[in-house]
């Protein structure tokens, strides 16, 4: 029954069409692993023990996550960092239902810095009124023109879409493991300010990992099924308003390698990315980050990651990202370093 519901949801999302006029698209944010058994951004095929609870807190910053060529009021096109920076806080909780199955929830909030020059104006006066014409209509410019007229500007902060996940371990050997993860994000974020999706999304993911003596390698492959959204150049004088970027269904992949350096310190490299498979004017993205993991106590893990986007053609390529976080699980050794450098 549950599988059928997921199928229906997927079909609805696949068939949902893009909106005609919008003023934002969802930025590809960080999507950390749902529990502390993973690396940080890459899932591992390990699940929490039964009734084990845990929490993770992340603080992240992404510089220039959205760069577009926009037409300004003079009609000239120029490159703008529409979103100059995104700071975010992620809170994740997980609970093991059985030793092979866990559920997780993620709450995320973000604050944005915008390029005010690139946003346009909510209330712009096309021609100043005069004695001959004392009353002239106003209009909206820039991204504000992408929506029906509002008194509210773009939000500088707000919640991102929260998510709920179910992770099931399919096989766990001494060296090799396979798991599956299903995540649903709820469209509660501010989709008009680059902080949320237009609709719920469904994100199935296949997880595999290999544990070697001091090394762990994890790989994820999945998809993001969503209703498409698009952003058009509202400043353009072309009545069709050229499409700047759209986001539709995407393939999701991630790869991570972690090595133990010391009893309480590990280091690694984590990469993740998306490749579009629907929509026009879509772009692939890949981010790579170097990671440092510290295990000060059995129940605690702290980590720091830094890196950036790799695909220069993509408007969603960021200049750099920084991620700091802490994982805590009072009942387990989830945060304990194992001989391979990653979590046990």
């Amino acid at each position: 029954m549950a599988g059928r519901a997921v199928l229906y949801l997927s079909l609805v999302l696949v068939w949902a069409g893009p909106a005609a006029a919008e003023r934002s698209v969802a930025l590809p944010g960080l999507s950390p692993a749902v529990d502390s058994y993973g690396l940080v951004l890459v899932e591992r095929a390990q699940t929490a023990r039964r009734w084990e609870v845990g929490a993770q807190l992340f603080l992240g910053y992404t510089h220039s996550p959205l760069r577009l060529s926009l037409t300004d009021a003079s009609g000239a096109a120029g490159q703008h960092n529409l979103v100059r920076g995104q700071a975010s806080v992620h809170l994740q909780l997980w609970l093991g239902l059985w030793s092979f199955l866990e559920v997780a929830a993620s709450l995320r909030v973000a604050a944005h810095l915008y390029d005010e020059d690139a946003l346009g104006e909510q209330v712009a006066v096309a021609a100043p009124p005069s004695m001959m014409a004392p009353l002239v209509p106003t209009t909206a410019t820039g991204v504000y023109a992408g929506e029906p007229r509002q008194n509210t500007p773009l939000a500088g902060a707000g919640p991102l879409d929260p998510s709920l996940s179910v992770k099931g371990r399919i096989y766990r050997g001494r060296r090799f493991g396979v798991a599956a993860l299903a995540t649903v994000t709820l469209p509660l974020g501010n989709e008009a300010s680059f902080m949320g999706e237009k609709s719920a999304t469904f994100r199935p993911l296949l997880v595999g990992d290999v544990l070697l003596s001091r090394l762990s390698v994890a790989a994820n492959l999945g998809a993001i099924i969503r209703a498409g959204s698009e952003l058009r150049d509202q400043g353009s004088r072309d009545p069709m308003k050229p499409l700047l970027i759209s986001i539709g269904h995407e393939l999701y992949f991630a790869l991570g390698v972690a090595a133990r350096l010391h009893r309480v310190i590990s280091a690694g490299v984590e990469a993740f990315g998306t490749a579009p498979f629907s929509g026009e004017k879509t772009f692939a993205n890949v981010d790579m980050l170097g990671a440092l993991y510290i295990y000060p106590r059995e129940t605690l893990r702290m980590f720091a990651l830094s890196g950036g986007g790799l695909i220069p053609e993509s408007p969603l390529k960021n200049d750099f990202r920084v991620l700091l976080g802490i994982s805590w699980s009072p009942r387990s050794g989830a945060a304990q370093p194992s001989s391979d450098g990653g979590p046990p």
Partner: protein
Amino acid sequence: MTGRVALPLLLSLLLGEARAQRTVADPGYEVLLPDPDPAPAPGQKDDAGDAAESELTIASRVLSAAKQVTTVQEAPSIVTVITSDEIQSRGYRFINQALMTIPGWLDVQGAGNHLNIPLVRGTAQAALLLRDGVSMFDPVLNAAQFNRVIPLETIKRIEVVTGPGGVLWGANSFLGIVNTISKEAEDIDGIEAGVGYGDGDGSPQDFRAFALFGKAFAFRKGPKLRIVQHISYENYLASRQSGPLILQRSPAPQPPGPTVFGPTGSADPSRSYIVNIDGRISYGPVTLSYALPFGEMNNSVSFGNTLAVGPVDAMGERTGETAVNRLTLLDRYLVLGYKSRFLGERLGLDAKAYGIEFVRDIGAVTVPASAQLPRGLSFFAPVRSYRVGVTFDGDTTLPLRNRLLFGGEVFHEWVRETEVRFEGAPPERLPLACPLAAGSTLETPVYQPGCPLPFIFGASRTVIAAYLSDQFRPIPRLVLDAGLRYQVGLGARGYRKALIGGSGQLLGSASVVWNFYADMHLKVNYATGFRPPVFNNTDSNGAAVQFSGNRDLGNERSRAFQAEWNARLLKNIGPIRELQLRADYSYTLLDSLIIVSNGSYSNTAATSRNPDDRARRAIHSVEAAARLYLRDHTLSLGYTFLHIDTNDRGRLRSIPQHVVSLGAVVTLVPTYLEANATLNLTTGYDDPNRLRTSAVLLPGGAFGTLAPYSDLTFDRLPPQAILNLGLRSRFLRNRMWASVNFYNVLNQAYAHPDVFYDLTPTLETTPTPAPGWSFFMQVGGRPW
């Protein structure tokens, strides 16, 4: 002393039987509840675990919101308790910040930033504020002191009832009750003092200091003398706000007209200050408590969301003067109480006589300063209203496992005719019929300066009420509760259109609480309440700056069907000390709501001309709360779902449908340092407003924008994430503490819900801006 003996004797004779033989230890009847603070048994070691357990148990006690000592789990209504320790550890500075974390409650501001209005189940002005059980309901504006005037350091606990509570508390306990319980002398036992400073857009240049003294003096004979004295001083600026300046609008009672906006500007309100002097003196069962606050409370946004901009010169440049834009809102009271128990604790009596002065001093900017109106236009109306009365509450144990609550009240409330005066524009330029000066004629009119007009006409009301509520426990795990109240409003503004005789209001309640398994309870409850029209609804002067009063208004009525499941789980399992859970569903019906219709107040639905077609609202709400005590840490979660329909405006879209409040107090260094975090998340909501669709040439050649009456929009107010963070340290064996708290850390620029939900916006035509980020750091202690 003779009287103390005679009264119990008389009562025992009246009640008959030899009940006096029974003792507290062996009462001979079902003891409904344990002693509030049970003493350890002889030889019992009160170790840390017991202390922690006791702390949780005491935190779940309800001492007065239900007019009896009970527990949150067993109380016949939906009750939440916030303790003084939680107030400190969560970094709450104002009572509304604490209320915001309770499921079903939302902190909003209205009338610009003049009023703090906690919404209960999406309904404004529906909560009754009590100070130690005395109603602080303002009979003129229903603008309760839910603001920074209430000094939180004097509060021992806040007990909050969600839902109507009319049987026990009478008028105005419409959808919620907030009872602040002050600290006793023993809670302080010495001198506490603190000083702090904060800044930031949300609360600029905020200085506050307080001192609190409490001591119980024992004498050789007679009861103890307990003295509590508090004084605090706060000096601050209202939140920084900016936006397009309103140059012209059509305030009430003008017909709706266009709003003209000029350039963007910033508010610069005058500095505010509040001095609180309050305390209590107890001698045995007699207590005298008082509060004498005074001050001036300026705000940055005025009615109609007009920014408070200081005077400008002829060129439109600021002169440096600030703008007086105040709604000073203070409750001054004197309460004499008598409280004791008789007949071996089986009969309790609590009587109070009180007098309250409600200061609602309005000095509001109507049109901000501009080159066209260099000093802007403001009006001043010092509204004072009063209430004097007596209340009497009793509880006694009856045979067959019954417990009876009974009581009543008599009070008289009144407001004198209050004058409004205008500043900033000569009377002849005001769109009002200003009174002529002596000797002036209509042919050559000379108006009285300031255009003095009645703001509100004098009005009064006398109220008499009595109630009975019986609690029957047929088996130890089941409690049945039913109550009735009859309340009569007499006099010039006595109740109208009430159920019995036109002036009498009958209220009823019933509940079943079933302790069905271990520490799990199921609760089903029916409760009613009502809200009589305030004098500003009945006696406002429609020829000044208000909508017309309607002296024929009836009472607003509320009914709620509520169900709750609550549990206390996982006690002392591993690191978990306890998990408290609760989930409620309620269906609430509001009837005869007072709305503004055709320039006056009415109980009739906005879409109807039939007076019998009353304005109604139906509210489905789901409220859930969880609190996890994990070692020294506390995690809490609150969730509210609201679905509100009206019979004249359709779905109420201006209230967020989902609200989540997450809280954490994490001990970083045991007994020394802890951190706190509060994250309030709300989903988006709508606000009916006007659009600026035209640009207009202004006198002097500048141009502004214009929002005509017909250009409407539903502003989509975005989802919010309000994050507060703080640190608190304690040292010198808890005798000193220091804290720093950051509010709205993400600097979320958001707008408050529009409680009017006026689909043809006149009162509020733009989103009401909320405060930005701020911080406050303070040090304090109890040196003696």
